[in-house]
């Protein structure tokens, strides 16, 4: 399965025309018109990352993390998913390391984003390292869709700037609000992040194998929660992939290795 821009960040509906194509069309990236983010796209993306930043800070502070620590964590980790996985494990009574490993496991998403990004970047180790460290869904999706190789880096950083502006403003405001907002569950804040995650992987789940993998991961986690220490249900959910591969009908490997 090829992870195209649609699977990566179709959820933001950025560069609408480019995302409107079929999944198959995204394989042939050179044939596409070059997507460029409109001002409305920047605002949408900024608001999205702003709201995630606020939510994460408020929930972290409510969970007992000090405001300084919460601010530092969200400024350096660059993976809200990992922070939420860690917090969920700790909330369930899991050990520090169980939380950390759960955080690592869910961050594989970003490693895979870096895999798609790297071949499209110009040569130069420093520039590639800096770009890889900033690999998120929207900027990678935009960068890999550029038809002109010279535009890849510029569009990547343009998108990154919009994202980061929203994120750090959100983290700042959230850190400030953390002490003020009272009962966060009253306004449904605890439903925000699971819903956001679902939207982020929505396009992956629309593919048969992606859906099987997702359902298996969810079932493994659900079945294990009552029986194993917190953290392990998330860590062991990686085996959902094995089931998806077994049930998969695509004999993609044989054709490639035989040639």
């Amino acid at each position: 399965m090829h992870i195209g821009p649609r699977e990566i960040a179709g959820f933001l509906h950025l560069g609408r025309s480019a995302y409107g194509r079929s999944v198959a069309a995204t394989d042939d990236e050179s044939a596409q018109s070059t997507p460029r983010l409109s001002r409305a796209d920047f605002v949408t993306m900024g608001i999205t990352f702003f709201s995630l930043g606020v939510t994460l800070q408020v929930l972290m502070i409510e969970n007992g993390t000090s405001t300084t620590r919460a601010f530092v964590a969200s400024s350096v980790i660059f993976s809200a998913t990992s922070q939420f996985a860690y917090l969920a494990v700790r909330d369930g009574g899991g050990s520090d390391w169980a939380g950390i490993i759960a955080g690592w496991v869910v961050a594989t998403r970003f490693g895979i984003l870096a895999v798609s990004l790297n071949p499209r970047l110009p040569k130069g180790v420093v520039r590639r390292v800096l770009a890889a460290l900033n690999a998120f869904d929207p900027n990678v999706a935009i960068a890999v869709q550029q038809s002109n190789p010279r535009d890849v880096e510029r569009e990547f950083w343009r998108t990154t700037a919009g994202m980061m502006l929203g994120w750090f403003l959100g983290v700042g405001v959230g850190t400030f609000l953390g002490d003020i907002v009272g009962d966060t569950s009253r306004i449904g804040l605890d439903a925000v992040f699971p819903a956001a995650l679902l939207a982020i992987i929505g396009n992956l789940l629309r593919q048969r194998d992606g859906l099987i993998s997702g359902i298996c991961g969810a079932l493994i986690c659900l079945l294990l929660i009552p029986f194993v220490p917190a953290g392990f249900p998330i860590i062991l959910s990686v085996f959902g992939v094995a089931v998806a591969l077994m049930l998969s009908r695509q004999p993609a490997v044989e054709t490639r290795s035989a040639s």
Partner: protein
Amino acid sequence: MTTLAIVAITIGVWGQRLAGAFLVGPQLEKRPNLSRAASLLPAAVVMAVIVQLTVTRAGSLTIDARLAGMVVAIILVWRKAPFLAVVLAAAATTALIRAFA
């Protein structure tokens, strides 16, 4: 979050991005099987985090208004609603049920 957790998760997240770009990426091109497994991994683990965040409270299974919020989110994601609509609808559903239950 403990200091250890902040440091360890930062190293893990940054390290995976670098490993993806420089070590794993070139290998994946040669191994389509591994590449497929890698691309399916986010679906499995992110769904597990979603389950954990939706139906547990302090480590045990707890069904509450969050689940209703997630059902709304599932429908909206399926219908390709915009990101902010999904998030706001899930939060609003959860909040409304709590207010009236």
